[in-house]
């Protein structure tokens, strides 16, 4: 592999040298005949498996959160990747008025489109993509306080816990991110997510405060946002010979 790269760079620098030589020749009004030359290299196609690092990190430093997400994408064509994520999250929401725990799993399926023109032989990505997300989860309202604007009476805290099971939610998510080859077939990635909730199970006299995969919801908006850092490993399945003209 290294040998091949060395060879590639050698060839390209040779071509560069040759072309500048050609220009020099042109100046001296000698007819220059351009030699068509191209470089061949292997473009790897395969399955990339990812592990979300941000969620693992948050599980350590945030005592109100436990989560794990694995992802996979398959290079379908030159720039199109079929991608998906599978995850599980458990998150506690606690402001003095509500103590709520959400627990459940989610799946996201969609595509990524690479918009980055790599240098020869490189496999980095800058991509945009969309996902359809679906989550199945439960919410546990552990205790809550009746909100009053007056503190004449002691706070009315109710801990007759209520559980809401069999909840589902679906949403559309846009992603944009980058993925950089760090060594061999390992990559580091970062992305942001912008999403819009489509459906959630209505909870009578309560609300969906946190949807696994979607993350927190907002009272007056169906919009959500998120991000992630990941480490990925590419399992090469086949390579395509790619040709790139090298006469410049």
């Amino acid at each position, binding site marked *: 592999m290294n040998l091949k790269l060395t060879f590639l760079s050698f060839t390209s620098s040779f071509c560069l040298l040759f072309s500048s030589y050609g220009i020099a020749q042109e100046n001296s009004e000698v007819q220059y005949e351009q030699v068509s030359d191209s470089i061949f290299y292997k473009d790897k196609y395969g399955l990339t498996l990812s592990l979300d690092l941000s969620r693992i990190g948050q599980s350590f430093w945030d005592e109100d959160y436990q989560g794990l997400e694995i992802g996979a994408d398959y290079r379908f064509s030159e720039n199109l990747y079929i991608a998906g994520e599978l995850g599980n999250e458990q998150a506690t929401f606690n402001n003095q008025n509500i103590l709520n725990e959400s627990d459940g799993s989610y799946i996201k399926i969609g595509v990524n489109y690479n918009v980055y023109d790599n240098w020869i032989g490189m496999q980095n990505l800058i991509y945009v993509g969309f996902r359809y997300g679906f989550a199945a989860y439960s919410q546990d309202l552990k205790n809550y306080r009746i909100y009053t604007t007056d503190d004449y009476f002691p706070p009315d805290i109710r801990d007759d816990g209520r559980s809401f099971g069999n909840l589902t939610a679906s949403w559309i998510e846009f992603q*944009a991110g980058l993925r950089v080859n760090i060594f061999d077939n390992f990559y580091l990635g970062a992305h942001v997510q912008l999403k819009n909730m489509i459906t959630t199970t209505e909870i009578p006299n309560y*609300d969906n405060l946190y949807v696994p995969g979607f993350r927190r919801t907002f009272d007056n908006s169906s919009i959500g946002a998120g991000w992630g850092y990941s480490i990925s490993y590419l399992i090469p399945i086949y390579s395509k010979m790619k040709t790139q003209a090298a006469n410049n």
Partner: protein
Amino acid sequence: MKNIILKFFLVTAVTLLLLSCERDDICPEATPTTPKLVIEFFDINNTESPKNVRDLAVRTFEKDTALLFNSTSTISIPLKTDSIETSYVFNLNALAESGGLRDTLTFFYATEELYVSRACGFKVNFFDFRASLEDQETSSEGWIRDIQVIENTIENESETHLFIFY
């Protein structure tokens, strides 16, 4: 194409910023939460005209502290949300040396809890609201002559729920 990505990042950043403006832990003051009981005082001799109270101390039996009102014809006092009745001693001219005049009012009601929002949590509305003036005959230091429930349901503080005539 790279412009699109740039725009996407920008839009996401702005959205994150905007969304983060919605605070989780602070319930906006303007949000209607558990309503207080709104009482308006009227002159018994002229039932159309509101009458300001002077040094009215309103206190429950369980507490030593009182809610104090002065020079107003409308007051609002909280009802217990974890009970179906609240009793208050209405002490007029409470700051006078004699201790002023006292009457005990008991309010009966049913409660219904309602989810408000992520920040505010739950509130309680009161319905089937009734009020009773205790020991009207036996009390020598009473001052309230009549009461009239105006609203059976207490859902907000923008309307008066009870009239007191004295």
